[in-house]
């Protein structure tokens, strides 16, 4: 009985994943078509390009209680819009900085490149991120 209770209380993080329409969203679809299983903690938001992601979207996500945020885009050189992923990568450094200032562990934010052919990589990324965020515990802004 005691054990059961403990298990029920296991922290289940909420993780947001921003996926670009052309590569990583298609990679996420391929994970589905290939039936690669992964934890249910991720909610995908589709955007046309990772370059669309205004840093405030990510900071807002943490403010509203996201335990982790994944930004995924096309591999360097493969961006459907030529260099949107590079623009995102530039913002990434700034975002990590801003997160530390706000007292959120920068490790809660990840930037990964996933192609339309990498369903297995997408599934592995979700498994790995969920595990890591579980180990980190809830977003400190939530408990503060």
């Amino acid at each position, binding site marked *: 009985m005691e054990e059961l209770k403990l298990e029920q209380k296991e922290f289940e993080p909420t993780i947001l994943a921003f996926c670009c329409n052309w590569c990583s969203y298609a990679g996420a679809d391929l994970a589905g078509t290939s039936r690669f299983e992964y934890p249910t903690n991720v909610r995908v938001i589709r955007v046309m390009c990772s370059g669309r992601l205004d840093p405030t979207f990510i900071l807002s996500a943490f403010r509203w209680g996201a335990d982790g945020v994944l930004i995924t885009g096309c591999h360097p050189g493969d961006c459907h819009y030529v260099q949107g992923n590079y623009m995102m990568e530039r913002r990434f450094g700034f975002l990590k900085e801003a997160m530390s200032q706000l007292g959120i562990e920068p490790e809660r934010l990840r930037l990964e490149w996933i192609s*339309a052919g990498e369903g297995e990589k997408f599934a*592995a990324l979700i498994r790995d991120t969920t595990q890591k965020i579980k180990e980190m515990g809830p977003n400190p802004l939530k408990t503060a």
Partner: protein
Amino acid sequence: MTEEEPKVGVFICHCGVNIGGVVNVPEVVKYAKTLPNVAYAEANIYTCSEAGLASIKENIKKQGLNRVIVASCTPRTHEPLFRSTCREAGLNHYLFEMANIREQCSWVHKHQMERATEKAKDLVRMAVARATWLEPQEEPELDIKDTSLVIGGGIAGMTAALSLANQGFKVYLIEKEPELGGNLRNLSRLYPTMQETHEILDPAINAIKSSDKIETMLSTTVADAKGYVGNFKVTLATPQDKKDIEVGTIVVACGAANYTPPKGLYQYGVFQGVLTQMQLDEMLKHGKVDKAPERVVMIQCVGARKGEIRAMDLAGFPKSDTARLLSKILKAKKEEGWPYCSKICCMNAIKNALLVKEKFPKTDVMILYGDVRVYKEYEDFYSQAREAQVKFVKHIEEVPPEITQTPDGKLAVMAYDALSGQEINLPCDWVILSTPMIPHKEEVLLARMLKIPISSDGFLMEAHVKLRPVDTQTDGIFLAGAASGPKDVPETIVSAKAAAARAGTLMANKKMRTEALTSVVDEEQCIGCGLCEEICVYGAHYVEENVSHTIAALCRGCGACAAECPRRAISMQHYSDEQILSQVKAALTEES
């Protein structure tokens, strides 16, 4: 938001058991009805069926819905269908939204049914939040140039070029080699009809030459490609210089190469008598055999169905660029073999075995195999080989056959018979290796220029393996032949004609509506700093009198300018800050 109060209709699909077998659909419907602005919710067995679509249309009218959500599969395949359904019912299709509860929920969480149901509810809530902010949009119209570029002058490219020319379109056909014909030039005859290749090649080449619609350029490759559907600007590298052309569509028919084993694999490149099937074919074609061999041993799946290099291995180098990355994979694959079944090698080996038998009836032909895959009518072809006394021996693949040379210069193959488990020794004159069709190395660069993803097998990837087999995810670019994976001649011709039909359909319409995902500048907020102009790779922004303007026809809708604008003066149609943030918020909180 439009003036009108949002009235959202939610249609939740069982997709047979695909979703319904994992997600508790009735519970999600019940939940959807409790969400703000939701006026109607129902479940469908298949929302994409005629009945499902009719119900959407009916309820748009009956319930006065001004937003429609379908929670089902991925928008990448079914959004166009549902959008057109909305349009038919008089609802602007930008007021439609999808929640992906199949590819990104039921299919990946099939052992976590309760949690999958909770996730599906969240995904529906996120879609409803976004839908509330959706606005109707007008789509800009693009002119489609009625000229096509076909890359590759093999049987795939020639077939596609002829088909397009017959439809009345001007075609540029480019071939990197100095002559047309591709891989077929090196083959003598084709299975299962044993037709000579020139019977297929000559008429095609002649038709190409006599067509006034086709401009053929040999020894020519693509140096650069820019633009978008209907308006591609391609720079060709010809032997003399560079040439710029403008085309409406592109058919990629760059074919495949034949895997050459590394020196030493089965003594290839060491002993003279060890050859690939391609080399045997060439030898038979040119009649370069003076003495009948006593025995020929063929080994199947050399360098195929080996190697486990899959997408996973890309994880090791996430930041390297694709070309470098793929060259590493290509190299790794070269040593380890290619993971897939090349699908033509069994028939090809049978064909060559029969050709050897035809030429030298007394020669003993043995095929060492792990599996024989002869589908459909090729089963008869296999029987034909059995009748001709071709011997099929299943060997233990895990123990690769060993090839040695006897003192008299003959070869010997030592393998293990899978049925008896016994070692077998086969003295022979030739050892023929059946090697797979593999992607061309240059294909990687081409894929990059044209923004075509590469599959885990290294070939160009189609937009959808079942639903859009010759489309790529870039509008206006199509795949023909073995560029997308091993194919024999009939399959190549089918795909080439399909690609030509798809390209032709686009060009015949002359105009195409593109998505209204363009940027809009708020002139009040803009300070004319010009950052958007600086970063836009399409030249879609220009600053005039201290205010930035968007050229909608050039804007491709990536949204980088909206993210970079220091004044937040740029908004993206259909992907506005509010629309994205509403989804973020709905994912994390119950309020919206």
